[in-house]
């Protein structure tokens, strides 16, 4: 097995954020697949229990537990495993109570009383800490070939607007108990998150609002000591169908009509006109996209680009996106 260098060697926790709907869940899944090779074991975590991962892999809703959900790409002996975990605040709180107080069944009773809702409501940071806590616990867990239970953990994280607060655990618990396990828990979480072991990647489409949010998000995280900003994954890009100069010069409608006739199409003149319009619109879109990409590049983080797939996103599509990420050095 030859270990090829990737841009994020040494990173074991990949946090994937981005504006809502830009493809966080899809990209996180593709990244997990891309990392799962050469016998590696990868855990894909969904932070805000909406069962997006289960839907993506065409599975029934995941219980609160780690299960194998897919195998990585690559031939015999080269492949790895992807496990998945959907975290919900309730499960995470019960886990926590069990871990520090050995009181799982009492915890269950408290759930019935609505305590979990209550606790997470009056202390909004609590469920975030429990969630990041679960992820970092998986990162630190011992076992496996290299001494780690998982070689990498990928987290489908909350959107850009909340990511700063979500990851800044120490601040999150500052209003909470001044002593006791939740404090030291937060500190150990921060030790992983604010270390070179963790990178925060941004998923972004080439549109104005997502680009702005991404730039704001990167600036925000850079302001937090120890936090490592990862790559910017441009998603759903429409590749230019022709070289830029040809797109810029605009289509020659009569030459287009000639070609269409040669291709055996009828009413070539009319068709050429409408295809010409489509080409012009495409040129305009490409120009807009280029502008947005330039703005993103200003941030100075590595850029990766995934194309807009026209078919529904299924497992085959995820492998395709995973291969793109791998080829571009993201994994």
């Amino acid at each position, binding site marked *: 097995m030859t270990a090829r260098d990737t841009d994020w060697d040494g990173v074991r926790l990949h946090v994937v954020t981005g504006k809502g709907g830009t493809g966080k869940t899809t990209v996180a899944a593709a990244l997990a697949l891309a990392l799962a090779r050469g016998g590696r074991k990868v855990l894909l975590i969904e932070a805000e229990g909406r069962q997006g991962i289960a839907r993506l892999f065409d599975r029934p809703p995941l219980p609160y537990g780690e299960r194998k959900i897919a195998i990585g790409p690559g031939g015999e002996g080269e492949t790895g495993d992807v496990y998945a975990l959907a975290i919900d605040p309730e499960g995470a709180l019960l886990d926590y109570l069990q871990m520090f107080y050995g009181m799982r069944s009492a915890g269950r009773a408290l759930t019935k*009383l*609505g305590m979990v809702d209550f606790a997470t409501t009056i*202390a909004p940071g609590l469920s975030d800490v429990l969630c990041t806590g679960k992820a970092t616990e998986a990162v630190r867990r011992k076992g496996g070939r290299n001494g780690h239970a998982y070689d990498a953990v990928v987290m489908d994280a909350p959107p850009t607007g909340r990511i700063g607060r979500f990851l800044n655990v120490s601040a999150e618990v500052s209003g909470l108990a001044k002593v006791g396990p939740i404090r030291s828990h937060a500190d150990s979480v921060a030790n992983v998150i604010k270390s070179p072991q963790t990178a925060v990647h941004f998923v972004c489409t080439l549109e104005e609002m997502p680009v702005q949010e991404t730039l704001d998000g990167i600036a925000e995280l850079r302001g937090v000591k120890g936090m490592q900003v990862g790559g910017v994954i441009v998603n759903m890009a429409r590749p230019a169908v022709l070289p830029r100069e040809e797109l810029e010069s605009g289509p020659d409608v009569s030459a*287009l009509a000639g*070609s*269409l006739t*040669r291709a055996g199409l009828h009413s070539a003149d009319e*068709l050429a006109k409408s295809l010409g319009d489509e080409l012009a619109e495409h040129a305009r879109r490409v120009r807009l996209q280029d502008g947005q990409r330039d703005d993103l590049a200003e941030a100075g983080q590595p850029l990766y680009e995934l194309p807009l797939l026209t078919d529904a996103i299924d497992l085959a599509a995820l492998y395709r996106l995973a291969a793109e990420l791998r080829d571009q050095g993201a994994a």
Partner: protein
Amino acid sequence: MTSTTALTDNPVLEADRIIDDRRTRIIVCCGSGGVGKTTTAAAIGLRAAERGRQVCVLTVDPARRLAQSMGLTSLDNTPRLVEGVSEEPGGSMYAMMLDMKRTFDEIVEAHSDPARAEQILANPFYQALSSSFAGTQEYMAMEKLGQLRKSDEWDLIVVDTPPSRSALDFLDAPERLGRFLDGRLIKLLLTPAKATRPFTKVINAGFSVVTGTLTKILGAQVLRDAQTFVTAFDTMFGGFRERADATYKLLQAPGTSFLVVAAPEPDALREAAYFVERLDAERMPLAGLILNRVHRAPGTLSAPRSLAAAETLESAPNGSSETDSSQASADAVAAAALRLHAARMSLGERERRVASAFTSAHPAVPVMEVPALPEDVHDLAGLRTVGASLSGEPQ
């Protein structure tokens, strides 16, 4: 764009009919995250104003440039007159951005004496609740709507709803906040341990486990803050519930119209379907579905035929003469155009399939399609274009 074949066979949503009907007093734009609620609300408001109505648009978190184009530069929680709106038919447009914290503060100030208000506003638990509780924004949007409607300064109020995963949050969150504020645990916290109420031992024991655990996790201070807040806030609870109920009733009144916005994508349409069913169950008046950012299939050349033609051109033998080479480069451009067209047709086809999952389940819901514009909508001209599409005017 030549073809305007609709994605669905459902009845057509006639936005102008709703706007022009003076009995329409409130239009609520809802839908899941990012589908175009704010854009639609602003576009409807502008169109109504330019057709003679006195409009107020209540927006929540508009994109910066869109807000600027409506003259909304600061979050000051009061409607401002929008410049650049045609006043010919005697209409006008006001717009505002919701400031949820300020709205909450104003309620507190209006319903308690100054000393108590100050105490509440300074409470850390109140501050958390008023700025970050999931549901506060929805509650405050409803509250603001109630206030605007009561002032009776506008004859049409267009409401945008907060960005949230699920469209249902708008209807559920106020109830959730209310339930939380007079929930069981809060009551427990309020009741001193040696209450005079006939508490059984069991409840008392259960109670100490609860408070004990909460104290361990959250710390005593957080609980004390919550207790102080609840005590100070106690007299207002009833008022909260009542106002939320009143606004909820307003939403069921005949002068209200709900517009559900969705993109032609499975998640957004699934949410739209839940919402439509919910409105029905609550007897809330649904005006119809706006299918936003639709990619219309241009022309009649199908995707497979387009691809076949592209392949024919790409596999043509390459000559070496000068005419041959200019022909070859024209063919390359044509092949690219054909592939582009094929992708466009497939996308249109996919959107049609996705939309039909909704429309077969809800064949009677009026639908209007708004095409995906090449650029973001961030000025009045863009809003007019969207408004025109909403009314079925040819582009």
